[in-house]
């Protein structure tokens, strides 16, 4: 009897132990599973971040590798005699006479004289096409600047045509497969490049044309000066309008506004405008400013108006945050000393909130500098060769210039587009880092 009880008890105890080990095993399995899932989750987070950073790096390396070539330009040193007979000019010729002279045929003759072995019509045309089509104009300007060079022989640094330039920079002298060759030159032209390069006449220099010229149909003559000036003018208008208006709005809403329906309505409007797609502001500019008020198209003044309306919410929201951060004790102290409400705000709150407001303004300006869509609609996409001199001259801006160039089929324009993007990104990075620096340097914490 006792024996059987003992056996029963021991089986029960054994059972219990078994259950326990089973449970412990189960738990161990579950713990492993849970730990694995924890690890998986962490890796998912790490991979997401890695993906984001990889995108940044890929974007930048892609743009830089595409655009770095545009910062150099190929030049060819060619000896040219300013032949008095061909041009019908001499060192005493007046400017009008020089401008009337036929530099086009002179230039072609000079090239033909250098390469007397080239005879066929097509070959000759290909020879002329080796250099930029503006070469006669450049020669003429040289003579206008200094008529005494007539009759002398000079070594002219000629600007290579974009096809020549691209070939020389990316394919010439490199061991490339047929498929990797980037060349739109004919065999004869490639031979010419080869002989010129071997004679040491071909040079690549830093491309100053990119920064001193405006838009052009010829890639080798196209530059971003006009676009940069247009961007600066547009931004100046935007800044001059949006900063005072935004600061005034922020002050009003934070310090003076009574709590009523109108104030609520203003706040709702500002929050909604912050989320309106930028292209809608283009429609507004077109329908209200151009059609209703009859403002001229394509001018920085109009662009500035549209961008002001677009950036206002951004600046207002950050300015309000800056004003909110000023502790009430400062206001109370000023009021207690007998200052009026306006004096308190202007003398005490505003200076303390200024760093935050400026940071917000710079970020808003950076946003305005990169904006394209609304400006397309108000006609800032025009092909403009002249550098704008005022806010009522037709102009284009840097992002729009990028958009225009990206449409061009020439490979050289892809390079120029990427270079323009690099310039734009440099501006933006400078502005944003300045904003960050300003915030770190000047912002006080209470």
């Amino acid at each position, binding site marked *: 009897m006792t024996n059987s009880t003992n056996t029963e008890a021991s089986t029960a105890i054994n059972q219990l132990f078994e259950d326990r080990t089973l449970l412990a095993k189960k738990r161990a399995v579950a713990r492993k599973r849970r730990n694995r899932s924890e690890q998986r989750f962490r890796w998912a987070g790490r991979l997401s971040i890695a993906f984001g950073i990889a995108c940044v790096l890929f*974007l930048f390396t892609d*743009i830089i590798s595409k655009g770095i070539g545009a910062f150099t330009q190929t030049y060819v040193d060619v000896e040219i005699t300013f032949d008095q007979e061909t041009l019908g000019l001499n060192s005493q010729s007046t400017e009008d006479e020089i401008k009337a002279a036929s530099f086009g045929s002179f230039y072609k003759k000079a090239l033909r004289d250098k390469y007397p072995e080239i005879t066929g019509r097509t070959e000759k045309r290909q020879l002329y096409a080796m250099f930029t089509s503006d070469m006669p104009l450049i020669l003429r300007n040289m003579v206008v600047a200094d008529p005494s060079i007539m009759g002398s022989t000079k070594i002219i640094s000629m600007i290579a045509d974009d096809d020549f330039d691209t070939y020389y920079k990316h394919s010439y002298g490199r061991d490339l497969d047929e498929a990797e060759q980037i060349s739109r030159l004919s065999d004869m032209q490639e031979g010419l490049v080869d002989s010129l390069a071997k004679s040491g006449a071909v040079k690549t220099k830093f491309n100053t044309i990119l920064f001193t010229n405006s838009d052009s149909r010829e890639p080798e003559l196209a530059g971003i000066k006009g676009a940069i000036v247009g961007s600066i003018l547009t931004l100046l208008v935007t800044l001059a309008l949006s900063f005072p208006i935004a600061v005034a*709005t922020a002050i009003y809403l934070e310090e003076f506004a009574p709590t009523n329906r109108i104030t609520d309505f203003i706040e709702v409007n500002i929050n909604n405008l912050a989320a309106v*797609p930028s292209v809608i502001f283009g429609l507004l500019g077109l329908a209200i400013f151009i059609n209703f008020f009859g403002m001229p198209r394509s001018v920085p003044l109009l662009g500035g108006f549209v961008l002001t309306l677009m950036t206002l919410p951004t600046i207002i929201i950050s300015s309000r945050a800056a004003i909110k951060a000023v502790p009430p004790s400062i206001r109370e102290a000023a009021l207690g000393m007998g200052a009026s409400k306006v004096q308190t705000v202007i003398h005490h709150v505003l200076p303390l909130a200024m760093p935050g407001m400026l940071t917000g303004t710079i970020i808003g300006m950076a946003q305005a500098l990169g904006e394209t*869509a609304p400006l397309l609609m108000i006609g800032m996409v025009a092909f403009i060769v002249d550098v704008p001199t005022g806010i009522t001259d037709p102009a284009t801006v840097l992002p729009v210039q990028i958009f225009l160039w990206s449409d061009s089929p020439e490979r050289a324009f892809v390079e120029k587009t990427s270079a323009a993007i690099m310039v734009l990104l440099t501006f933006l990075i400078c502005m944003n880092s300045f904003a960050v620096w300003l915030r770190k340097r000047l912002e006080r914490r209470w």
Partner: protein
Amino acid sequence: MNLSTLLLIILAGSAVAYFIGYTRSQQIAKPIGGVRNLATLPTYYASMMTLWALIPALLLVFFWSVLDGSIIDSLVKSSFPEEAKQFSEENLGLIMSQVSNVASGIGSIDVLGQEYAPAVDRLVSLTAISQRAMPLLAVCVLVLGALMGFRAVRATNNARYTVEKIFNVALFVCSSIAIFTTFGIVFSVLFESIHFFQKVPFFDFLLGTHWSPQIAIRADQAGASGSFGVIPLIVGTLLISLIALLIAVPVGLMSAIYLSEYATSKTRSIVKPMLEILAGVPTVVYGFFAALTVAPAIRQYGDKLRDWGADNDIGWLANLAVSSESALAAGIVMGVMIIPFVSSLSDDVINAVPQSLRDGSYGLGATQSETIKKVIFPAALPGIVGGVLLAASRAIGETMIVVMAAGLAANLTVNPLEAVTTVTVQIVTLLVGDQEFDSAKTLAAFALGLFLFVITLALNVIALKVVKRYREQYD
């Protein structure tokens, strides 16, 4: 005299007024025992005088420049010959522009007809009068205003009240610009849309499945009528936005979770700004990237896949056709663009979940990921949904990426490898370049704009409501 010189003169004049006001207040202070016996500080007297001089002159210049064009126009039109009065509005506008061309020396009066000579003369003389009178009047108003201000510089008159009142009014006017902007947007898109719906029935627009906005110049040309069915555009927009969200939401959300829950503050301070760079890159750069790098790459891989499918007899793969302007390329790049947007919004929401919830969950033995998945995520869900809605509205309204990387042909398809077009692309292509304001083609852009405005506005309102309701739970 041009406008900027006039403005400079007005500014200089008011600076002089400030100086005079300041000296005058000191002058009147002397006999009564110094500045402290004035009702307020000299700077307030000076500011008051400046405002008296500045504001009326500026208002005059502003209204004059806004109104003079239309007033001169109507005066010139009244001197048109009798038979011109029966012309339609558009013809009158045409004649008016010819008249102004002749007046500025382009073209000759003979083309227009001698009977318009008085109109041309009138235009010339009126413009000359307006150009001469405006600066003169502005300066007069400036001087008069300054004189009024000067008279108000009295020891007993508290100029501070005036100045502060004007300051308050100015602040209010600046704040109401936001309201005017919204009204401006609504009216500009609404009016043109109403014109559009007079030409194209509303339901044809909303339910039509064919979009080809080309209106022929002659009635007998092929496809003369043009059709404005918006469905293909909506499908295209949604397709691209969906691809973008499929990339941005998981990546943005997971990086936000990792950064706020796992990462050390040092990692966070390095990684977060790096991700924010993506938000600062202009959209035109993304567009260029999408069109020149991503789209060709996708096409290339698609072609490789097709060849591989053809080699291995996989039927559907062998028929794979990737368009060079695929929705996929635009969608992927747009997704990358809105990653930081999603991640910073979710970051805010996750950080707003109170620590006590986390502590409770850890106390019950949950691992960190279990806490996140089962406690924090549900608690933050409304905020995250709000963030996703905002991201969706951003994606729908995004313009440059799709203009540069998506196509123009309005295909009704959900295949991400084909070219689709979006609402914003159509707005831009319809409005860039020369337009006439009464053609259905141009007006269609405004109808699309109205559509876009309403959709994004609705998404934002819903998103803000959702976020707001959630925030109230823990505050």
